[in-house]
């Protein structure tokens, strides 16, 4: 998955050089704002949505802010724990089922560097940022007899949330669509510094406007 994403991005960057005669450079604007849709992958595959806004601070350098929501980042340990508890409840006649989800909301700010490709509609970039992420452990048990609390006391390992610092690294290509619109093909890696550590990989596209 990662390999194919990198291949797409590399292709896009090279294409930008090849079409160097295009009328508008990707980093000409003062800034941009875009909405983003991504595929998030890791232990589970889900979707991520968000927005990104950036302001030019120097030639080829932008300050950006990225905020979003990843629907599920459930690690193996969370699912295994929930499964063990559901099995125990079932063995006691509780007839349990369970669902596990670990959504993450995040906000990061950082620096985005666009490689100089004069007059090209394509502008490959790298970015690095930091911020915070809120990791929600969303485990639900359903029992056929009695209450869930009759069988288990749920700890913070299966429920609740924690907000921790987040490091974000990214690469991508901005594709200028005329003077106003921009298509951003991107890959993002995020590391959330929870007690177990959480990696979030996102790959997708953003569509925005430049101003």
């Amino acid at each position, binding site marked *: 998955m990662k390999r194919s994403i990198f291949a797409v991005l590399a292709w896009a960057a090279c294409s930008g050089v090849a079409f160097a005669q295009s009328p508008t450079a990707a980093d000409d604007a003062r800034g941009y704002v875009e909405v983003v849709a991504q595929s998030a992958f890791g232990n589970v595959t889900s979707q991520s949505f968000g927005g990104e806004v950036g302001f030019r601070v120097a030639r080829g350098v932008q300050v950006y*802010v990225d*905020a979003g929501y990843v629907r599920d980042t459930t690690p193996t340990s969370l699912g295994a724990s929930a499964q063990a508890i559901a099995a125990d409840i079932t063995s006691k006649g509780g007839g349990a089922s369970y669902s596990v989800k670990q959504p993450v909301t995040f906000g990061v700010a950082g620096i985005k560097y666009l490689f100089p490709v004069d007059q090209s509609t394509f502008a490959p970039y790298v970015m690095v940022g930091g911020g915070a992420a809120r990791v929600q452990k969303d485990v639900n048990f359903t029992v056929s007899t009695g209450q869930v609390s009759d069988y288990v006391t749920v700890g913070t390992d299966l429920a609740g949330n924690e907000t921790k610092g987040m490091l974000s690294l990214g690469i991508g290509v901005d594709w200028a669509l005329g003077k106003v619109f921009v298509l951003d093909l991107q890959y993002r890696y995020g590391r959330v510094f929870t007690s177990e550590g959480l990696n979030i990989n996102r790959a997708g596209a953003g569509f925005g406007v430049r101003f």
Partner: protein
Amino acid sequence: MMKHRSSLVPAIALSAIGFAAVSACTNSGMQPTGGNASVTSPTVVSPSPTAQIKFTDQPVILIVKNAVVTQSSGTTYTFQVASDSAFASVVQTKDGIAESTSGQTSVKLDSLAASKDYYWRARATANGTTGPYSAATKFTMGAAVVLGAPSPIAPLTGATTSRRPTLRVTNASRSGPAGAITYRFEISTTSAFNATVVSVTVPEGINETGYIVTTDLNVNTTYYWRATALDATNNVSSTASPIQSFTPNQSQAEALAAQIGITLWPGAAPTGQTGHATMGEQGQYGAGWQPQTLYYGPQNVFFQSPDAEMLRIFDLLDRGFDPVGAIDWMNSNGYPTNALWYPPPEKAVIGLHYVYLASRGKVVVNSIWDIVVRVE
């Protein structure tokens, strides 16, 4: 340049606003009620629900299957015993019991009062999380009835017996409000009683209790037996009586009956040790006891000798019965006979249809008995 740097402030502000806005929309799922770990209730193993426990089987040991703990380290258990299902009256609490690595954790209770129902439950604590209690489980402590072991009377170790011996014990001593007592007699070919031949329960007799074995045991085989007093009302049993052994021997009559293919005592069997009579040999005193066909002249018939009736009467004499007692025993135990005893000093013979069983020398006790064909 200053203009560009000023962009950082709204950028960070936007980031915070965006993060807060999205976070506010994503609160869902269960909320933690414990510490770091999630802990289930342990599972009751023993005593099982509605268990009846003998008062003398104390101390009671409570056993649970370990709880599921998602982050286990130093898991401990709390056991509670109460006299009511709501645990309003807790009679014992055992706290801080370390989890066993065997998968089951147990605790030994202090002595509990007799004749009461109890309820028990357990819960686990780990990593700051106290799990829920297991379901309350009831058990009943039996009455404080103590039964002493019965004492064997007979047969004692080393005895030889008939193939259907009578096992006898003195009644067990008892204390407390005992119910009706019964006795379980067991016979085995091993002293460990792992190959039980007979296991029967009989009601208590007066002063002593006995059991007559109802099937033939193997001859020349050593058997072991014991008896245990039981109080079914209070679910109390004694320890078993001291183990005794015996060896069934085939009497002369039984051996001969087997030789001619008949069952000597198909129903009730007499008790008592053999050795009180001897079969007379063929010769001047009689025809002898070897299987043969004899001739009864007055009716001109041939008949098989000995027959079952002759052998049964002899077997009774061999067990110490006197002739009248032997005839009476047969008539009252399902072996009807027309035998007549002609006592000394004239004859000292038992008259049967074709023969007399004659006591040699007219000695009735421990005599030699000859088969003499009747002539009248």
